[in-house]
């Protein structure tokens, strides 16, 4: 949402301050660059608190009702990214935040004071219910992350500058396809298994690694041999991933604990 308008107008367009204030553009860009370099799209599975909603819902039912989903749906988020960026540039407004973000349902919920706000609220609630709750429960997949989130699509593109990826050892692979079933983002199919790596939409969550009984799938460091030092690659990826999790979510968790303590001590959530 920042890059294409920035290229077209040679200036930053976003309803936030460049520095300081809530979610300043410069701070966000620094985080996107830093996290892209460190984890790439691994951010979506190890740091994104919105993705956590989707992930939580996708784990509720052990045996999903809908098992076959066309992997072509994984490219929709890239179309959303392109459309949102172009419309944002044309209207000089953050279209996604204004009209599409399902997580407005759980953050920054606006008081309904006009027909426009009512329409937006209906869109937010519908998308949240459908893509974050109902479809993830029915499919066991992270549907919002896979089919809508433009940030995820952007991270998939910036993932190119990251050193970690996931590889499949074709010699060990028995083609049981448990990894395809386990992948929450439709990033694996038969072609990708044959190619030895998932598509660029892979979030490096590690579910396919856990699902593989032949230990044919593993984290890998680009530029190193594919068939050696699996534990090195795994540890070197997982340590910064957990570190990101702790740093990014430590603050909100601390606030949550303080709220719970307040609730126990005073009977109210308000300080």
């Amino acid at each position, binding site marked *: 949402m920042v890059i294409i308008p920035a290229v077209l107008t040679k200036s930053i367009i976003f309803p936030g301050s*460049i520095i300081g204030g809530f979610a300043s553009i410069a701070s966000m860009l620094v985080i996107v660059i830093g996290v892209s370099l460190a984890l790439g799209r691994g951010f979506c599975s190890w740091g994104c608190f919105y993705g956590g909603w989707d992930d939580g819902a996708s784990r509720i039912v052990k045996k999903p009702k809908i098992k076959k989903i066309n992997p072509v749906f994984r490219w929709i988020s890239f179309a959303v990214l392109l459309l949102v960026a172009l419309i944002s540039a044309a209207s000089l407004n953050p279209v996604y935040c204004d009209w599409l973000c399902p997580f407005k349902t759980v953050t920054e919920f606006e008081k309904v004071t006009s027909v426009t706000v009512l329409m937006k609220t209906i869109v937010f609630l519908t998308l949240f219910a459908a893509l974050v709750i109902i479809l993830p429960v029915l499919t066991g997949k992270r549907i919002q992350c896979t089919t809508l989130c433009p940030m995820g699509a952007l991270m998939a593109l910036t993932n190119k500058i990251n*050193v970690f990826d996931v590889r499949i050892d074709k010699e060990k692979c028995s083609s049981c396809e448990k990894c395809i079933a386990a992948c929450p983002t439709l990033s694996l199919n038969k072609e990708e298994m044959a190619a030895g790596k998932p598509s660029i939409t892979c979030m490096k969550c590690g579910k396919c690694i856990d699902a593989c009984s032949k230990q044919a799938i593993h984290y890998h460091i680009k530029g190193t*041999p594919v068939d050696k030092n699996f534990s090195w690659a795994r540890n070197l990826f997982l340590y910064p991933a957990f570190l990101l999790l702790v740093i990014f979510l430590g603050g909100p968790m601390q606030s949550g604990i303080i709220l719970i303590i307040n609730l126990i001590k005073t009977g109210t959530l308000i300080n």
Partner: protein
Amino acid sequence: MRKILSIPAYLWAVACFLLVPVTFVKNDAFAKQLATLSFMKVHPVYSGGEVNRTYEKDSLLITVNKTVAVTLVGDRKQMVQVSFSKGKQLPGMIDQTIDYDLDGNSDFRVIVNTSNGETNLTPIDQTVKSLWLSSRLKEDWVIRVNLEK
């Protein structure tokens, strides 16, 4: 050769462990550096545009900016930013008529209650449509008015 190539890859991977805390701990410093890069320019929709005229009236310093197109395509929809300041303390009430296009005729009247932010805009010229924003900005009070040409 493969071993030699592996060394920078492993070093980069190890550096990622440091990169995560550095990104967050040094975020403010990096953000300030990023924002001051010579090619970083804020779009006038968010900066408010260039200053057109500054004058004093009723002991208020009034700054009227140049109009800014609020869409990328076409310039029919525009906005103008006007700011009011009076040293370190703003008056409780601002009541001014503004000539944003410097044609010698007042274009709108604005009344702002600075204690609660209540703002009333009365269009005089037909290009003036509505109030977009009315807010305190450090020691100034800033309003933005939607225009349609």
